[in-house]
């Protein structure tokens, strides 16, 4: 299923075949006053040379040679050229993802493999074919918990990504859901005492992120126990999916909402991303989105189909389980390729490099007078430090040496005004880390 433009002659032929004179005639069912009667305000066609020139100019606008210590939900990881080469095949890149089992066994099998990988990583029993991103996956997980429990109060960790909380609030605003935040302790993890105080039998979900927005790893067992004790479900979100290669999988959670960008997708302009919802099999009928399943054809041969599609929007309209009725098939395919290329050992090694480099960065920063680690517990590739000076000022200095500084926590947490969220992945070299630490030291020594 390729996209090929039609020539004017072919268009005429198609119009003649269905008995109309022009494309405009196809729109006569739209009342006159709603029809646009002028051409769209778009630039005219360009020659091949002009197109190449245009894109060369745009490419020249890219910033090159920067080192980044910014994560906060978007992570720069190594990607193999094999992923790009395969992904850019026309059958994948330009096709509108088809799902008819008769013609798309390859696509459906790839989605099935993706779901399998996501189950293995999350310790859950079923995973869907993907959602837009981690934020919509988290919100869909909450809506799923609402459908399962029939309750409408949501307790959300304040240490959940601020933008994920915003997306959840947007959905909740007109759907009758009440969203309340649960604070974090001095160790940066969810405050269990505050959680227990807020948990009553009207709560549908407790939402927690791990590693959380400050980089701290949450102990999900007791949180699941507390949630279940009140008849609520535990929703575990993760923005850094690579952590699942070394951190214990969130098997205690009832629903897992994942951002999968770390698996083979570049940070780009902040997208496209790929979200995942994974859960227990008993909840499969309340899961949002598509699901590919393995089956057998009439001759008993292994085959793949979309399954449980009866609850999707194109069939159930306003009663569908979710109004996200598409998936990020190409991104999910990239993630599948990336994970298969890395393999079990490769992904673990990559994750361990993140831990080692992040620890080294922290130790380098702690040598600087006035720089203090904020939260004491274990972390993956992000951690929080307090600086003796505004993070924004430090970042402005760092940028002069082509270093993109850490996330300014004060922009989302007024209680953390001098705090920086530092991210270090396997892509950062020892030399770059040392230059970063030297840059921070220099910025802090500058007179005000």
């Amino acid at each position, binding site marked *: 299923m390729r996209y090929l433009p039609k020539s004017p002659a072919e268009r005429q032929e198609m119009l003649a075949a269905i008995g109309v004179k022009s494309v405009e005639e196809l729109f006569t069912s739209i009342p006159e006053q709603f029809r646009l009667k002028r051409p769209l305000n778009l630039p005219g066609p360009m020659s091949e040379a002009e197109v190449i020139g245009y894109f060369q100019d745009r490419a020249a606008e890219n910033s090159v040679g920067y080192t980044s210590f910014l994560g906060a939900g978007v992570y720069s990881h190594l990607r193999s050229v094999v992923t790009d080469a395969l992904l850019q095949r026309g059958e994948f890149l330009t096709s509108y993802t088809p799902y008819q089992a008769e013609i798309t066994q390859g696509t459906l099998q790839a989605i099935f493999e993706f779901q399998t990988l996501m189950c293995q990583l999350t310790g859950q029993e079923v995973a869907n074919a993907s959602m837009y991103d981690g934020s919509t996956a988290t919100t869909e997980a909450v809506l799923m918990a609402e459908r399962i429990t029939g309750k409408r109060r949501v307790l959300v960790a304040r240490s959940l990504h601020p933008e994920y909380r915003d997306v959840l609030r947007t959905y909740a605003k007109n759907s009758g859901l009440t969203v309340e935040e649960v604070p974090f302790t001095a160790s940066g993890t969810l405050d269990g005492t505050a959680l227990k105080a807020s948990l009553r039998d009207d709560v549908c979900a407790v939402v927690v992120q791990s590693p959380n927005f400050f980089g701290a790893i949450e102990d999900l067992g007791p949180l699941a126990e507390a949630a279940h004790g009140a008849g609520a479900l535990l929703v575990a979100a993760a923005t850094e999916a690579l952590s699942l290669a070394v951190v214990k999988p969130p098997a205690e959670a009832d629903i897992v909402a994942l951002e999968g960008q770390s698996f083979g997708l570049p940070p780009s302009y902040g997208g496209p991303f790929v979200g995942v919802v994974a859960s227990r099999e008993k909840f499969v*009928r309340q899961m949002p989105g598509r699901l590919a399943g393995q089956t057998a054809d009439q001759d008993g041969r292994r085959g793949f189909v979309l399954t449980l599609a*009866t*609850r999707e929007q194109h*069939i*159930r309209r306003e*009663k569908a389980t979710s109004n996200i009725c598409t998936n990020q098939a190409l991104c999910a395919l990239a993630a599948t390729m990336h994970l298969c290329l890395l393999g079990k050992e490769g992904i673990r090694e990559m994750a361990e490099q993140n831990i080692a480099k992040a620890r080294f960065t922290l130790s380098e920063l702690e040598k600087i007078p006035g720089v203090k680690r904020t939260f004491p517990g274990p972390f993956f590739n992000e951690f929080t430090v307090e600086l003796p000076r505004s993070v924004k000022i430090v970042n402005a200095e760092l940028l002069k040496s082509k270093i993109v500084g850490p996330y300014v926590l004060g922009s989302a947490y007024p209680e953390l005004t001098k705090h920086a969220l530092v991210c270090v992945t396997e892509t950062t070299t020892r030399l770059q880390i040392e230059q970063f630490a030297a840059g921070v030291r220099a910025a802090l020594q500058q007179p005000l």
Partner: protein
Amino acid sequence: MSYPTQFRYTKEHEWIDAKGGIATIGITDYAQHELGDVVFVELPAVGSSLITGKTFSSVESVKAVSEIYAPASGQVTEANSTLQNTPESINSDPHGAGWLVKVKLANPAELNSLMDAAAYEAYIEEKKKEASA
């Protein structure tokens, strides 16, 4: 399949069989035939309330998920848990083993406004004619 004469029927193809204030509710043979192979049934919790005309359950077949509407108001005293493992009994025995819930009726007189077997059979004959027209 014949339609039991002691049942009352709705236009949405549910049946209700009341005995001494407790009524059993299911979907009709016509409904199961229209749905095709039933693969999953979602049932309300015991103790929850049914409100006349509002959905209380959904039946999923290989073709679609269909809402089931309450023929009368009442409180659920029992839900047919055997349907979790054998939803196909809705196809094989819609007026018997395929029942959905038992309810304590809030107002037994409500049933007087529903169709009896003869009226229902005439109603579905009409439906069949419309479908083939």
